[in-house]
């Protein structure tokens, strides 16, 4: 098992390395000179050259990459070309906001999708199962930001039950913090749960035909009891895979949701950096978003090893 986890870790480090190269290549090799962009369209060549020297963008690309990369390792993203301030403290601040949002949304999505998908599978030839399947088909088509708009205009602006937007740190006003989280978390979780329901449903349907479930029922367990005690653990593996794939969709979805609800997270930081053409900040935030995705993938890979005794046994066989 440890060998397997070490393998997961090695793959994670390699992917992270490749991702830094990809982000750097996309942001720095393809486009024009960041100094020219920061200087504006009417700048003289001397001004541009001066800025390039100040930013260090006049050096060869491999040197610049190494500089950025070794900074990343120390948690230092460098100084913004536009605002001339350190990027790292800002990222550290915003990442907490985004992580709270995304984690709660994924938890809610799973809390809806696992029971709903299981019921849809158990009752797949009854009306209740068909209703859940149809609702999930509809839910997939509604983008999170659209659901957010509907929630805001109804629950916040029409009924006035919850604040329409904004953010309060939990330490300042915990009740206000929770109240402002409700709508964005539901908006983010909505689509995800609709997607996950389909995978839970088909995973459970698959498991339902297994011999061990028939044995459990022959032992006297009710169909649902057998499924909960023996089936769900086996259905968990494909669902875990989808959860890790969907996490990157959730993170990018949060960027848009932050705009709808005016939440000061990484998404807002990214969008304002795009508006200012602040390329180094864009590069840093993109790197953080991709890194979060990769960390989640790593955690899920490790979870597999723990959840699935077959993988554990195979790993022991390898040793």
């Amino acid at each position, binding site marked *: 098992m440890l060998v397997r986890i070490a393998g997961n870790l090695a793959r994670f480090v390699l*992917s992270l390395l*490749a*991702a830094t190269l*990809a982000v750097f290549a*996309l*942001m720095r090799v*393809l*486009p024009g000179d960041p100094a020219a962009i920061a200087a504006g369209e009417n700048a003289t060549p001397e001004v541009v050259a001066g800025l390039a020297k100040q930013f260090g963008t006049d050096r060869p690309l491999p040197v610049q990459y190494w500089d950025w990369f070794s900074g990343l390792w120390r948690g230092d993203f460098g100084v913004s070309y536009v605002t001339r301030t350190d990027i790292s403290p800002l990222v550290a601040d915003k990442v907490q906001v985004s992580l709270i949002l995304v984690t709660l949304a994924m938890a809610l999505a799973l809390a809806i999708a696992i029971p709903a998908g299981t019921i849809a599978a158990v009752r*797949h030839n009854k009306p209740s199962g068909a209703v859940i*399947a*149809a609702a*999930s*088909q*509809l839910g*997939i*088509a*509604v*983008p999170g*930001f*659209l659901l957010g*708009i*509907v929630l*805001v*205009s109804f629950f*916040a*602006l*029409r009924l006035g039950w919850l604040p*329409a937007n904004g953010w309060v740190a939990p330490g300042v006003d915990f009740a206000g913090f929770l109240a402002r989280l409700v709508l964005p978390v539901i908006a983010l979780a909505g689509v995800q749960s609709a997607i996950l329901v*389909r*995978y839970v*449903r*088909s995973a459970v*349907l698959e498991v339902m035909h297994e011999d061990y479930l028939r044995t459990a029922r022959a032992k006297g367990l009710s169909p649902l009891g057998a499924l909960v005690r023996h089936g769900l653990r086996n259905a968990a593996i494909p669902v875990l895979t989808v959860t890790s794939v969907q996490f*990157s*969709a959730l993170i*990018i979805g949060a*960027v*848009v949701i932050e*705009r709808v609800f005016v939440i000061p997270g990484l998404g807002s930081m*990214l*969008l304002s*950096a*795009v508006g200012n*053409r602040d*390329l180094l900040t*864009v590069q840093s935030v*993109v790197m953080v*978003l*991709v890194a979060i*995705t*990769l960390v989640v993938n790593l955690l899920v890979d490790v979870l597999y090893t723990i959840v699935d005794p077959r993988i554990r046994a195979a790993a022991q066989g390898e040793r």
Partner: protein
Amino acid sequence: MRNTRPTPAFLVGAAIVALIAATALLSFFFTPFDPLQVNAPARLQGPSLQHWLGTDNLGRDLLSRILVGARITLLVGVVSVGIAVLIGTPVGIWAGMRRGAVEEITMRGADILLAFPALLLAIMFAAIYGASTVSAMAAIGLASVPGFARVARAGTLQVMNAEYVLAARAAAQRPVRIAARHVLPNITGMLLIQCSVTFALAVLAEAALSFLGLGTPPPVPSWGRMLQESQQYWGTFPAMALWPGLAIASAVMGFNLLGDGLRDWLDPKLGRGKA
């Protein structure tokens, strides 16, 4: 075990997609009003005989703007899916036929690109090149390449073990000829399904991008931008968000249903349960 009749999902999806395509075509010849015509006295009106879906905050006719908005949705979808098919398919087939190092490198490359969702790549492109339809199409297309490469490779691996391919290889046919004559025709169904699913994702990404103000710049109407323009009026005049929202959701659902329907119809074994 090939079903001979298309499933209801396929028919509903095809009908929605056909309706959107017809809408976009119609908008070139006829719209009830000029979609850009500002008419301040007629602002924020509900549906009427004159303005079927009402007007927006500048008095522009919402129906006309929805009709014209379909063009951007379809254009971005068609071009980005086109980019993804044209790059992803040959790469995937190549990986599946050559195996070895070629396969390893291209598929690991695909894995890395998968860490960049379409919208994230599109935001990066907007930062670098500025917001435009072209950078949106390029980014969404590029982000969709790995999906096609994976599907094409998986299909190729299956086909390469078939006897007719073994026969063709035994007859010393050139790989390009085998790819074109035997592999491609046999994975077309899988690729069509992937096209439909990718199209739905492209519609979503374009809508989100326009909503963020990073898609097609104004004054060209797009559904996502119409949602953004409605932001101030969500409480007082939700109809301004309702129609573009419905348009986006039905387009996504249309292409998703089409993909699901194709999957059940062309290859029941591929189906992940009928939804």
